[in-house]
């Protein structure tokens, strides 16, 4: 169960505003990446985000580039999960591979506002907000296995050890 305070954004939050192109070929640690998280969307985010906070957005979150740092910087900023109406396929994969839970609420996220408190129950597959439950589809087992292993790197390591 994740229980966190909400950072609320709209549709089509793209990878350039999450993690700018000018930083993508600079070697940085995840902690350094976190300092630039959402820089061109919300300059207050990186400065005040707290571990366990949750990002809630509209449709097509993470559209644009394949840059993995878009997921890494959010994960390293302490965000516990991202809830969106939909995700770009590359952000979705990158988030799973970084061990950052992503929750698709296809019915919409407009009922959730900034600074609201939201709970995510992965076992039941529900987001709880203001006492109301909103169902989300379970991740396919292949994908869940990666997330449960803490991301793609530990997942592949485990598989290579087994082989």
């Amino acid at each position: 169960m994740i229980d966190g305070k909400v950072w609320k954004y709209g549709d089509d939050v793209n990878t350039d505003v999450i993690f700018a192109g000018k930083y993508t070929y600079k070697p940085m640690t995840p902690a350094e990446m976190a300092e630039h998280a959402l820089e061109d969307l919300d300059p207050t985010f990186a400065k005040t985000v707290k571990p366990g906070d949750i990002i809630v957005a509209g449709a097509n979150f993470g559209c644009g580039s394949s840059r993995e740092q878009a997921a890494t910087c959010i994960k390293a900023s302490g965000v516990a999960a991202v809830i969106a109406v939909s995700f770009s396929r590359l952000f979705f994969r990158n988030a799973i591979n970084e061990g950052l839970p992503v929750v698709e609420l296809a019915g919409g996220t407009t009922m959730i506002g900034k600074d609201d408190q939201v709970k995510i129950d992965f076992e039941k597959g529900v987001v709880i907000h203001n006492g109301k439950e909103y169902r989300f589809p379970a991740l396919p087992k292949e994908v869940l296995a990666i997330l449960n292993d803490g991301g793609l790197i530990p997942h592949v390591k485990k598989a290579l050890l087994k082989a």
Partner: protein
Amino acid sequence: MGLTFAQKVLAKKAGLSSVAVGQIVDVEPDYCLSHDNTAAIAKTFAKFGVEKVKNPERFVIVLDHTVPASTEEYAKGHKEIREFVAKQGIQAFYDVGVGICHQVLPEMGFALPGSLVLGSDSHTTAYGALGAFSAGVGRSEMAALYATSRIWLKTPASFKIEVRGKLKEPVTSKDLVLKIIGDIGADGALYKSVEYAGEAIEAMSLSSRLVLSNMAVEMGAKNGYCAPDKKTFAFLEHRAVAEYTPIYPDSDAEYERVLTYDASKLGPQVAKPHTVDNVAPVEEVEGTKIGQALLGTCTNGRLEDLRLAARYLEGKKIAKGVRMIVLPASQEVLLEALRGGLIEIFVRAGAMVLNPGCGPCLGAHQGVLAAGEVCISTANRNFQGRMGSSEAATYLASPATVAASAVAGVITDPRKVGRGGGA
């Protein structure tokens, strides 16, 4: 019910007789691409505790994003990549200057009909223009591919975009794809396999089709397929690195959505700041003052693009106060442009011709924008802050619109201006 291209190619790669939409398959890509991000990928690969890349012959590495290195950091990354490919015995390594990966892979014959190509770059969708299934992946996934050669993919549902009629000069495939993205939105084809079809697509050159497939990702698509034909086979004749078998969708394939366009009714389109789906006919933004014009990139840096732009620049001068940057997509394109006299036209007009590469498209170097500046570009993205300052603005358009605008100093409808050569 028949099968779509995506179903057929993924079934073949997974060794199954057929796959259903939504089915997850475990596949081995034919070729995998990475670029300057190989430095970071190699570091992740080292974490697996595996000495050697499995199947080094499957990997193609092209240095194109920050070339030649503009900072010591970038230079260090390039050096590490050269050491990595040497150590791993990766033969298909194209160092600084050869070109942009999405032009180099087709030129070098790695983008083949019916093949599966994955790249740690979102515009890997480009190779759909040659009938490949090609999609972007993340850096960790590329590192895992180095180690295992395998990856999971979900079989996407498919859209068919049927384009009838004939594009009217100087309207190009760029205008068409901008129009489609504007209509369906940046998530209009989210997670779908897009199949382009119809007489306008059949009439297009491979270069024009590459624009459509490149920008499929800007409507959220996983790949953007064009049926390979005689033009594709002729292009690949002395290039293909392996034998290939084209894959075509069944005529009764099931599409989630079919969109129909009439190419003959289309005029020049422009994507306004700061999203690719913020599209308007050029008339709506005519007169907008610009400070920079960018011709080139993986989207529109091919010979036909340079040729089209040159028609508006020949015998003309770039407007005062405008910087024009020309980025040919590859050395091969640059050479052909040189031989065809296009480079002289650009230089005489006052444009800067840069080495093949991604240049300022992603805001790393070579012509980034200051706050308040406006650029018109043939690239594929105009996100806020992408080309430099978050207070700069980028408009996306065809080579004709960009060249006509560079001469006028304001966004200009290319249909309304005389072409060069005294016209």
